[in-house]
């Protein structure tokens, strides 16, 4: 349906894992050492038992038994303590790594080209941010340490087996082909199967999110059944993916079980034969059998966690994939020498082969107020986004002070030009949270600083005529708004967005229908008070309400993706072009005052 965000390849995932290890070398060494010691303590059991069996068979005293069992107890206590510290150390490391990972992920998501996110849809990014982060969290908390422990225990147990006698290598090697073949078959098929499974859960979240956010529409139109069917379809797709991975495991698990069974049985048989020839004693046969049997546990955990690691790898690949979206910005380090914004020969398309803009030229004078008008779908908003440097033009240039907008890093770009659209998104958080995001200065905790900040925030709200309702909010600037919080009307949300713009204070402001949700009189009043605050700044106001155009220094008419005419209001009316026609259609009422 939509174009999903990219997924990192195996090399990138391994590179990330290595860089993670390099970033926390001390923590990692401590974790490995503690787990190794805990595993060593766990190996004392069969060894001491072999000794017991041997001595019982040869006749021994109760005192010797007590002594051996005493050592067993010491090993146990050591294992318990070491386990605690080892687990705790891995939790601390895991949480640290996890926090880094999700913060990196959010950072990368925030740098994504807007078009890419919109094409991928909410579900994909949302699932990555919730389910994949959670999955990875679970893996880092459990799968990674468990695998590490299992690996260490397996290696040490094999060493212990060989310590009992070289002959134990024979039964152990017999199990290897089955384990290897089965696991190899499985691992090769598992990655794409699990990727599809994850994507299917992403689709489920997307459908659910749409139902929740559009709940009022669902109710108004009686779409309950349609939404239930959509959820059902997403579930059916997920079930299909689950069946595929289940099939893979159904083949894989039994082969692995056989891989464990054969060595245990063979150790008994080989040991029995060697004992009969007098080559080994009973203690050795006992210890060897117990070790081989004891090997099953870590080996099984190792192999079954491989599965989990595979899933974790998929999640990690999806999280890291976000960083692989080709950037549509190429910072060159060039600095604009003035605030002169200019578009030359700009062409742009969202879908290949369907240009929305067909060669737009626009030269903005510093400090002027330009109104952009034109019919819906003519490309006004697209032009606004290009003038704000959100998309790079396909052909042509948009420059500020002769530097391309997409050559500037994002944080620098916003000092030059900012954009407010008719979209009235309110972020989850307090009113303050919603406003301060426009400020790019460091935070200071001091009381005088925050009092000063609050005065600025109130000032910005005042500049957009929002003081009235803002002062009546239950907790003032600390009122929680956004999804689940105090509900703002679309008009209030628009005022909030404009207050943000006032705080950001860029040299050029692009307003795309930024007051369309306010009633006409309030909108006009707001535009005038805003104009007073941003006096001297360049303003590009995209509007379908012509009074905005009337108040502007110049008007640009966009039609069919080109600037059809540009000039002061009166000149355009006089020239009798399409603006004049539009104006007449707007004010063509016989009873106009």
């Amino acid at each position: 349906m939509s174009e999903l965000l990219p997924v990192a390849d195996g090399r990138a995932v391994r590179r990330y894992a290595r860089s993670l290890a390099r970033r926390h070398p001390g923590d990692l060494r401590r974790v490995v050492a503690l787990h190794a010691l805990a595993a060593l303590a766990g190996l004392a059991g069969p060894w001491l038992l072999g000794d017991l069996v041997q001595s019982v068979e040869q006749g021994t005293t109760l005192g010797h038994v007590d002594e051996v069992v005493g050592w067993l107890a010491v090993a146990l206590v050591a294992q318990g303590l070491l386990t605690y510290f080892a687990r705790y150390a891995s939790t601390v490391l895991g949480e640290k790594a996890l926090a880094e990972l999700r913060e990196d992920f959010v950072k990368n998501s925030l740098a994504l080209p807007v078009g890419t996110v919109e094409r991928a849809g909410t579900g994909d990014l949302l699932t990555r941010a919730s389910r994949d982060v959670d999955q990875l969290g679970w893996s880092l908390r459990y799968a990674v340490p468990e695998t590490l422990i299992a690996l260490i225990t397996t290696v040490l147990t094999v060493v212990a087996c060989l310590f009992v006698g070289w002959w134990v290598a024979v039964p152990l090697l017999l199990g290897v082909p089955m384990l290897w073949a089965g696991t190899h078959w499985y691992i090769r098929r598992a990655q794409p199967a699990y990727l599809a499974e994850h994507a299917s859960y992403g689709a489920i979240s997307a459908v659910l999110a749409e139902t929740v956010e559009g709940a009022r529409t669902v109710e108004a139109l009686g779409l309950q059944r349609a939404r239930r069917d959509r959820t059902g379809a997403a579930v059916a797709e997920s079930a299909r993916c689950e069946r595929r991975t289940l099939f893979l495991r159904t083949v894989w698990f039994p082969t692995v079980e056989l891989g464990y069974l054969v060595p245990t049985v063979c150790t008994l048989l080989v040991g029995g034969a060697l004992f009969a020839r007098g080559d080994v004693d009973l203690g050795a046969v006992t210890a060897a059998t117990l070790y081989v049997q004891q090997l099953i546990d870590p080996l099984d955990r190792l192999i079954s966690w491989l599965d989990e690691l595979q899933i974790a790898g998929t999640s990690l690949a999806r999280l890291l994939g976000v960083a692989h979206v080709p950037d549509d910005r190429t910072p060159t380090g060039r600095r604009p020498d003035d605030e002169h914004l200019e578009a030359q020969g700009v062409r742009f398309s969202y879908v290949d082969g369907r240009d929305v803009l067909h060669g737009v030229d626009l030269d903005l004078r510093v400090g002027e107020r330009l109104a952009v008008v034109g019919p819906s779908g003519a490309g006004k908003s697209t032009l606004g986004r290009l003038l704000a440097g959100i998309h790079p033009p396909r052909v042509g240039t948009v420059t500020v002070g002769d530097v391309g907008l997409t050559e500037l890093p994002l944080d620098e770009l916003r000092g030059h030009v900012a954009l407010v659209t008719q979209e009235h998104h309110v972020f989850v958080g307090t009113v303050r949270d919603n406003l301060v995001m426009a400020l790019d200065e460091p935070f200071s905790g001091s009381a005088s600083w925050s009092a000063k900040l609050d005065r600025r925030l109130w000032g910005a709200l005042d500049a957009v005529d929002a003081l009235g309702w803002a002062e009546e909010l239950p907790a003032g600037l600390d009122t929680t708004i956004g999804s689940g919080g105090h509900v703002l009307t679309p008009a209030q949300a628009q005022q909030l967005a404009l207050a943000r713009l006032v705080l950001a204070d860029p040299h050029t402001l692009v307003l795309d229908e930024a007051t369309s949700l306010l009633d006409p009189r309030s909108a006009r009043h707001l535009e005038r008070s805003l104009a007073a605050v941003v006096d001297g700044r360049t303003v590009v106001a995209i509007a379908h309400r012509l009074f905005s155009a009337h108040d502007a220094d110049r008007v640009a008419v966009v039609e069919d993706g080109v600037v059809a005419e540009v000039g002061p209001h009166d000149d355009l009316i006089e020239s009798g072009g399409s603006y004049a026609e539009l104006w007449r259609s707007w004010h063509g009422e016989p009873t106009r005052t």
Partner: protein
Amino acid sequence: MREFPFADPGVPDVRSPARFVWWLAARQWRTLVGGMFFGVVWMLAQAVMPALIGRAIDEGVAGGDTRALLGWAGALLVAGLVQAAAGVIRHRFAVANWLTASYRVIQLVGGRSAYVGAALPQQLSTGEVVSVGSSDLPHFGNVMDVTGRMAGAVVSFVVVAFILLDTSRTLGLVVLVGLPLLLVLIAPLLHPLQTRTMAQRERTGHLNSLATDIVGGLRVLRGIGGEQVFHARYARESQQVRDSGVRVGRMQSLLDALQVLLPGVFVVVVVWLSARSAVRGEITPGELVALYGYAAFLMLPLRTATEFANKAIRALVAARRFCTVWAVQPALTDPANPVDLPMTATLVDPESGLVVPPGRLTAVVTDNPDQGALIADRLGRYVDSSVTYGAVTLRAAARTQVRERILVSDASATVFAGPLRTAVDPWGRAAQYELSRALTAASAEDLLEALPEGWDSVVEERGRSLSGGQRQRVVLARALVAEPDVLVLVEPTSAVDAHTEARVAAGLAAHRKGRTTVVTTSSPLLLDRVDEVAFVVDGRVAATGTHHQLLQTDRRYRRAVTREDD
């Protein structure tokens, strides 16, 4: 495995989180029992292995009897094969159990969200609802998944205890009393673990809603450059989640260590007792090995029991969140005995004094746009009011009937993802010519040219791939296709240009000819086309008449619609 999705996921018991989990389990008792049966076989096959190894060492190795050795080794092989076969069947049951519970929860949440409707976004954030269907989901599946192994753990524990009792009364009693005692010792740790896990979940949920905001707000952030501040806020909360994760981890590590230590004490005691018996010649070396094997095996049931407890706790935490979502009620309740609405009648809002005559196009002009939306909410009964339709107050009718008859289409109307055809006709009931007619009336035919595949072009979630004006016209076309008895449109042309607005005004009037329609607007182009205008000041109808009459007679009206200052 059964077919998914469920035709009907059922009505959950939400009197408490535990009852909900129990209800889920009862719905899938057959696969749960299947999973338990094979879980028992699987674990018993493992439980007998120490005995087989002990006999092999005693009779085969120490006794020097090759045939006995081969015999016992063969028995071990058979037990292993049984374990492998039962293991894979158990796994298939476990997955079926996992999926059954998870998909049921998804369908319940999805269905409930659709049912509650308008009240849902006001009471819960999207993130909270969606996380029940995404990150909470595994917890419902996990608890069902573990039941099979839990059953195996209980049965094999009892069997091993009786084998031990048969070997030595002391040893048997040690096991029978000792193992439950261990569980009791571990249990007190589970409560703080639950509290900490809940705190962590809550924080994680909040962190997820922040991340959700990225998608919705990225365009806004990109315009204004708030990325860094937003990231700093996310990082701050992420660190809090990390802290609570470490707190959970500390408790978990303690639990893990005790899971090694406590059963270990048990192994030591069993080995000590049986080694002394062996020295006294009461048991053979092989039996000593078997007893050690049993004691070591019992760690598996114990581990499974704590895993079960752990997963049950997580499921309860998730169930609590499910119950919160389920508890959200539609804003208005239906009357006990709903009255049928008349077919066509006059719609009256006593609060504002607005009278909407049947079969006519009425415009509502307000001095304050929020008032327009409020009146629309009352007319469509999104808020409680004493609005009447003919002789019936809407309050006395069923909510679904009100929705069928009176459609309110406002600025917050969502366009759902899917082909344009479905976006305009989500019910799939209109004929092609009706769709085309509605699209033309909404002056949205240009969409068919702009979109690559015409009616089959996919519109992205919430109509994101459309411009504001395009989205608004799709919403309008959809409202026209719905053909409601009464159509209430809130500012239907706020995002389109003057040319288009004029065409929409003509199209709307023609399409709704003879049907009851209310439009809140202040656009002269639209007002010029309506049958009657009601001018509302301070929430009350101050004047009525045609647009031209009001323009001539009412100064305040003139000011409101011509956006001129005096």
